[in-house]
């Protein structure tokens, strides 16, 4: 009786380890250009998916990059829909309670996008409507700062929706990662007459120390491999190559 069980057990073990080495599933925001964007063929493209592919190459693993709306991305990670999240997610103390983070893979300030020439100071916020991404750090920061100054928040599921409403004058500003506002809106035909305005927002209390790759809490093995791979792609130049593809400036930060 015991032997067949043992054999079965060994077989199962072999299968699971084989499966483990095969494919890593990364989730990224479904629509957060230039960091992520779903192509017409359903494939994810952008900075985040490219970094994921580079990391997997360094880890010698197969990579699958899946789209997921940002507001459900942590619960879905914890529900094991995928193994890691690479979605421009800032490393914050609050999120650390729910997931473990890798070292940062880039660090960039958040900015307001508004009509060119808007003079942003504390008085400006009174009565203004500001679009934010639901459950983003920008939303959290805005709720605790801009709302106190008299602004009203409008929450969106996807960043491009807030740009559409900004163009349609439904909101007065969108509060996003500087690179997203710049590349996906201000520099496009839609963003004519709009600019990044106001200061850089990067208070570490809210915005953390940059964006990291999230894994389920306690998944130390995968985290160590990702951190190792991150060092490797920083060193061998593949990170820079991907960065140059999307940005004309350095987004890794200090």
């Amino acid at each position, binding site marked *: 009786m015991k032997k067949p069980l043992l054999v079965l057990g060994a077989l199962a073990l072999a299968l699971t380890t084989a499966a483990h080495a095969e494919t890593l599933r990364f989730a990224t925001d479904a629509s957060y250009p230039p960091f992520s964007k779903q192509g017409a063929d359903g494939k994810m493209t952008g900075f985040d998916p490219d970094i994921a592919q580079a990391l997997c190459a360094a880890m010698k693993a197969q990579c699958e990059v899946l789209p997921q709306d940002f*507001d*459900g991305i942590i*619960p879905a990670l914890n529900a094991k829909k995928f193994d890691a999240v690479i979605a421009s997610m800032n490393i914050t103390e609050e999120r650390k309670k729910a997931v473990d983070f890798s070292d940062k893979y880039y660090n960039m300030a958040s900015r307001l996008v508004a009509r060119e020439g808007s003079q942003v100071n504390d008085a400006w916020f009174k009565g203004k409507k500001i679009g934010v991404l639901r459950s983003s750090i920008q939303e959290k920061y805005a709720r605790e700062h801009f709302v106190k100054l008299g602004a009203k928040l409008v929450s969106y*599921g996807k960043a491009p929706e807030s740009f*559409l*409403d900004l163009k349609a004058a*439904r909101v007065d500003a969108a509060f996003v990662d500087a690179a997203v506002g710049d590349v996906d809106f201000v520099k496009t035909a839609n963003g004519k007459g709009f600019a990044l305005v106001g200061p850089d927002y990067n208070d570490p209390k809210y915005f953390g120390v940059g964006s990291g790759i999230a894994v389920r809490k306690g998944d130390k093995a995968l985290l160590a491999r990702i951190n190792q791979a991150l060092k490797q792609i920083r060193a061998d130049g593949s990170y820079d190559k991907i960065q140059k593809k999307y940005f004309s400036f350095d987004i890794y930060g200090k």
Partner: protein
Amino acid sequence: MIDFNMIVEKLPAFLGGADGAPMMSTSDGLQLTLELLFLSLACGLLLAVPLALMRVSKNRVASSLVWLYTYVFRGTPLLVQLFIIYYGLSQFDWVRDSWAWEYLREAYACAILAFTLNTAAYTTEIIAGQIRNTHYGEIEAAKAMGMSKWLMMRRIVIPSALRRALPAYSNEVVMMMQSTSVAGLVTLADLTGVARRVFSDTYMPFEPFITVACFYLVLTFGFVWLFKLAERRWLAYLAPRKH
């Protein structure tokens, strides 16, 4: 397993506080859901009665126009209709320059417009069907009394059709209540929108969604009960005899 403390703590958010109220509305959460529902049902019903009369009229043009309208709105998903009204219309400069933009710029007004047009289409067909089902005896009697066409419509056909439409209309009300949840996709924090917010703040999927599910169940129960009462009052003559 289920964190009841969290549910209790977040309950006021579901009921709706003036804090997150969208423009033009008084509140979010449950209050917003009920506002959206009742306003769109009321406007939809008001539209549906004349539209149903046009639908059954002998005038080919009027009848086919209404047919086209109900076909389009019953043949496409409500979510698509809402997106076309909210994101689509705002792309045209002439819409943004018109008087209507004052309303169309607000997600709240767009949602009510979409819901109204949608429920009016279904209700039109429900009422038109019951008008066609009117017993010929009632019509003959009205004619024998010498009633004009409009008097007959007003006194006999419409009241009778509306009564008989009650059971089908109660379904429409319950379906519409569930449909209001798509409002969350155009930035409105209705019941479902609040649940999504709590979900993404706490990373807990079960508690907020089970809580809103209970809200909707209770509402459905309330509506079904109200319609039962209404049917007992206005459809008594169609009920099986008890003695």
